[in-house]
């Protein structure tokens, strides 16, 4: 098999995306689909261009204040707890299965409760996001700290290294691929949590708020505009994490390619 060129790696998916857009436009126009049901891509583009200030305001509210705040809080909390738990084998054995199970639950269901606790503004959104990302991050960090080559660990012992030295020089770096794995999951969850929580009450801005109100007014083009923004944001965040991962864990077999 010949290797994929960079051109092919970009051209094929891009071409496919463009083809879908063109077909969409043609179908909507030829069959005269009501714009309230499915607006054509050009109308969505026009709606976006015409309401940049609103989209920006919503984006700041939902992504920056809600999702990103929750993301760093949840990640930091998971990191701190993981470093503490790591010192107690008994706790680790007990907490791993519990955290694993919690990570599989629809924690997003806490959204209405968080709105009740922390009010309509971004604090409740950040709280939902923080709890949602906490468990996958905890599981991944603990898993990463445990995933140390026994030979590497013995080596540190022959040097008489301290716990902190081993953590800093061996287990920390070895856990990084796992940390990034968790972060990739967490970024997707963060956006979902921040938007869902707005469905349960929000100030008069935010992507989730805009989607529900514009949907109520049958202004579907504006709903699509928010969808485009959220999709681009989701992909960009993922890309950012993947990009940092590539630079930081360049040594890992999965990144050497």
């Amino acid at each position, binding site marked *: 098999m010949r290797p994929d060129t960079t051109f092919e790696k970009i051209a094929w998916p891009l071409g496919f995306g463009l083809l879908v857009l063109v077909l969409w436009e043609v179908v909507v126009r030829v069959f005269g689909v009501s714009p309230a049901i499915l607006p054509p891509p050009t109308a969505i583009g026009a709606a976006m261009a015409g309401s940049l200030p609103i989209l920006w305001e919503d984006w700041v509210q939902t992504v920056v204040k809600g999702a990103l705040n929750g993301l760093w809080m949840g990640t930091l909390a998971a990191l701190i707890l993981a470093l503490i738990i790591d010192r107690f084998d008994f706790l680790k054995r007990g907490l791993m299965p519990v955290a694993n199970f919690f990570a599989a639950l629809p924690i997003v269901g806490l959204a209405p409760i968080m709105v009740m606790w922390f009010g309509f503004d971004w604090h409740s959104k950040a709280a939902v996001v923080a709890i949602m990302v906490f468990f996958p991050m905890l599981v991944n960090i603990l898993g990463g700290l445990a995933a140390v*080559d026994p*030979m*590497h660990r*013995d*080596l*540190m*012992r*022959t*040097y*008489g*290294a301290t716990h902190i*030295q081993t953590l800093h*020089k*061996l287990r920390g*770096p070895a856990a*990084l691929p796992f940390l990034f794995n968790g972060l990739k999951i967490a970024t997707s969850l963060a956006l979902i949590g921040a938007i869902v929580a707005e469905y349960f009450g929000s100030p008069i801005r935010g992507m989730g708020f805009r989607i529900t109100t514009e949907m109520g007014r049958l202004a579907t083009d504006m709903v699509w505009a928010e969808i485009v923004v959220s999709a681009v944001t989701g992909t960009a965040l993922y890309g950012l994490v993947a990009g940092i991962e590539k630079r930081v*864990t360049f*040594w*890992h077999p999965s990144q*050497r390619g």
Partner: protein
Amino acid sequence: MKKPVIDAQNVDLTFQTNDGPVHALKDVNLQINKGDFVSFIGPSGCGKTTFLRCIAGLETPTGGSLTVNGLTPEEARKSRSYGYVFQAAGLYPWRTIAGNIKLPLEIMDFPKAEMDKRVEKVLDLVDLKGFGKKYPWQLSGGMQQRASIARALAFDAEILLMDEPFGALDEIVRDKLNEELLKLWAATNKTIGFVTHSIPEAVYLSTKIVVMSPRPGRITDVIESPLPKERPLDIRDTPEFIEIAHRVRDGLRAGHEA
């Protein structure tokens, strides 16, 4: 007579496993003097690696006494007496070769300038000059293993413990590294404990060959090598060499039948 560096008296080690206790070492008595090159040879499961790990304080014997310079292995480890080389190179993939060699130096708080000097010196010793900036996965298996030896030499530990360091390499590379190891030993005069299951390797390298046998792991023979310290590769065709190799093979067979 001088006091031995490593002194094992009736060392016993039993592992508790899910399938009941396993008697890994039984009644092991051995004295290793400063500057000795001691090989441990025997079939899988004879406890040779376990014994090496006991010396390094990575396992704790369940009976008998084991001292290193009069200290317990644990204390000796904490005072950084060992350079340990494992079967695989075990280099950290996120560090360059130089970074890997610096690792023990960082842990032992060497000053910065001293670190760089030592890295240069040991890279030169193992013939890897100019490879310091490479990452481990960019080097061949033989070069990686040389780097791991350099790492073990970097902090000038008194005792070098090597657990089948060349086991995963092909014969040609292994011959070359054996020759280099002898040169290194002559240059540094370190005490070396070396685990292998190759008879020619053990005979070629050692001043003392410890033959072990399994179930329970124990010493069946200790052979003092009469070979001179200077050993070109073709010494392996001399009658003396072949005679020692015979004795080792007999020891292994006897242990097997017993």
